């Protein structure tokens, strides 16, 4: 029984742990499918987190205020990034890193100035939806999730449909694979790229907002703790495919949610080995994913990281 309870509790904790990774990776995929190499996730997560808490404290302590605020704030910063790399054609790696540092400083400063630090909010509550709530009480820990967890599958399905089953998605991917060809076909490369970056940023902002509003329910400077970088790695692992990113995020969530539970259950295993496992598994899965068939290179969008300049020969 104890072991059943352990598994139910553990599995119940997985979605909340995996969700920020999944949404952030999805946001990065949207941007990178359009050919814009995006390293801004860590910064945008912070922006989303701060905006979510800030809106809760300044406007109303409601998730439907906080999460849109997180999305909008991240979109604004995403627009800045898009302006840098698409319009001004700054090197995408450097611009991405610069945006992260900028966001780290900015959020920390704003959080201090506005005194948003150390004020708990009630945030996103757990809910259990109808057919699942009828299951035996022992399983409730499994299905009692934040509202956003239930929205995760529709979001992934929606993004997948748009990217791979719609004309917009086809054009977006064309811009990412061969911007010159897309340009000759009359597609607005700049427009598609800016929109893709901003839309992707919205998803990353939502992930950041969730970390704060659904997770910590409080603002701490630098609270994302490197989770954005893991999302960047997840994108490569997922070979720029949404469902694989979701799988990767869940895998990561499983392990991360397991780590404290092993200790809490009093199982003695070497401390630092356990803290290392999420990263170890990431490397292992990347190696596995990269073997054979030319590895990840085949799936990488053809023009990833390359700014498009009309009339310029390459």
């Amino acid at each position, binding site marked *: 029984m104890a072991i059943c*309870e352990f598994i139910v*509790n553990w599995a119940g*904790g997985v979605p909340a*742990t995996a969700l920020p990774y999944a949404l952030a990776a999805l946001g990065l995929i949207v941007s990178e499918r359009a050919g814009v190499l995006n390293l801004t996730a860590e910064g945008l997560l912070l922006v989303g987190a701060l905006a979510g808490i800030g809106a809760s404290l300044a406007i109303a302590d409601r998730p439907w205020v906080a999460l849109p605020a997180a999305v909008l704030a991240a979109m604004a910063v995403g627009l800045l990034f898009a302006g840098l790399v698409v319009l001004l054609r700054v090197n995408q790696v450097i611009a991405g890193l610069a945006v992260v540092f900028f966001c780290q400083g900015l959020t*920390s400063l704003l959080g*201090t100035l506005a*005194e948003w*630090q*150390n004020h*708990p909010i009630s945030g996103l509550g757990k809910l259990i939806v109808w057919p699942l709530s009828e299951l035996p009480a022992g399983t409730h*820990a499994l299905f009692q999730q934040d509202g956003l967890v239930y929205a995760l599958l529709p979001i992934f399905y929606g993004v997948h449909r748009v990217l791979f089953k719609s004309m917009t998605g086809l054009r977006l991917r064309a811009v990412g694979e061969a911007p010159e060809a897309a340009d000759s076909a009359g597609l607005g490369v700049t427009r598609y790229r800016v929109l893709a970056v901003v839309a992707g940023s919205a998803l990353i902002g939502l992930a950041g907002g969730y*970390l704060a509003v659904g*997770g*910590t*329910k*409080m603002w*701490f*400077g*630098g*609270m*994302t*703790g490197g*989770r954005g970088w893991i999302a960047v790695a997840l994108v490569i692992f997922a070979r720029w495919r949404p469902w694989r990113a979701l799988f990767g995020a869940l895998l990561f969530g499983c392990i*991360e*949610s397991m*780590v*404290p*539970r*092993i*200790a*809490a*259950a*009093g*199982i*003695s*295993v*070497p*401390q*630092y080995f*356990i*803290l290392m496992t999420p990263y170890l598994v990431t490397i292992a899965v990347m190696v596995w994913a990269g073997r054979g068939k030319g590895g990840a290179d085949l799936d990488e969008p053809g023009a990833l990281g390359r700014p498009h300049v009309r009339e310029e020969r390459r």
Partner: protein
Amino acid sequence: MGSRWLRGCLAAGLVLMGFSSQALADGFTLEGKPKVAFLYFDAKNDGGWTQSFEESRGAIEKAMDEKIPYVEKVPENAAQIRPAAEKLIARGYNVIIGTAFGYSDTFKELAGKYPKVVFLNAAGTTNGPNLQSFYGRTYQSQYLCGMVAGAMSKSGKLGFVAAHPFGVVNWTINAYEMGARLVNPNATLTVVYTGAWNDPVKERAATEALIDQGIDVIGQHVDTPMPQIVAQERGVYATGHHRDMREFAPKATLCSSVWVWSKFLVPELKTISAGNWTPEPFGAFPSIKEGGTDIACCGPAVPKPAVDKVMAERQALLDGKQIFAGPLSDRDGKERVPAGKVLADGDLWKMDWFVPGVITQR
């Protein structure tokens, strides 16, 4: 016999002479009045460690009758610490108080470069003729918190959210469990290390995992109030660290281990100001009696008899009771402190063993 007596006398005389001349030659004396300034590691309202210094600053200003400036968010790297400190020194400040372990090396270097300036550093590891690190004996206040936790736990299962497994953290864990066992001899303490001082996401996961295991009082030694907040959400109790955590979780917080820096720093600054100050060779390590650390006790949930018991034990600590006194064995049965002995400070700092009842990863 006679010559031995004479030699004894001579030695005593020499020691006395040496003492007085040494005091004149070796004790540190500031030129002019002390002008104190703080370097804060984080924001002054970080809710924990840094805020405890900010709160002591007012009391120190009053006692020393001077305005004490501070620089916030000085991260733990030399390129940021050096200019911040040097700017203050150039403006005439001659007592610089740092607040981070990571300032240790830079403060050592600055102390050599500015021999006329006093450097004090909380949680530091370096010392010198004009440099002294200081830290509170947190195991005393956490021991008292453990007593409260032991008294309030229905299941006898306590949990602890900790940052890193090393001496400073391990001694609070051991003392917490020893305090709990004083009240409930069967109490156990399950520890989750998050591997970070400030990762609220991991702290939340750790606290939830502990509560899911049937643990009903959570202790902590991390830099955020996250464990208290989760405890309150889940309807269990918690004890805080750094500051009185009732600010964040009034229902869940039973008591907190708090910093009372002014109680240590005011007399220390007065000593420095009087001249002939000799810094402790291995840093100052004040107990509840000397300031540094104390317990903020207790929330309304704790019954009067339990509070009285804790306060009586606090008085015993003030009167010199030692927590890590022998005979004391670790959880594997190995004797760590022989009967009649007390664990030395050096062994405290490298504590890597746990008392019976503590459940941790290896």
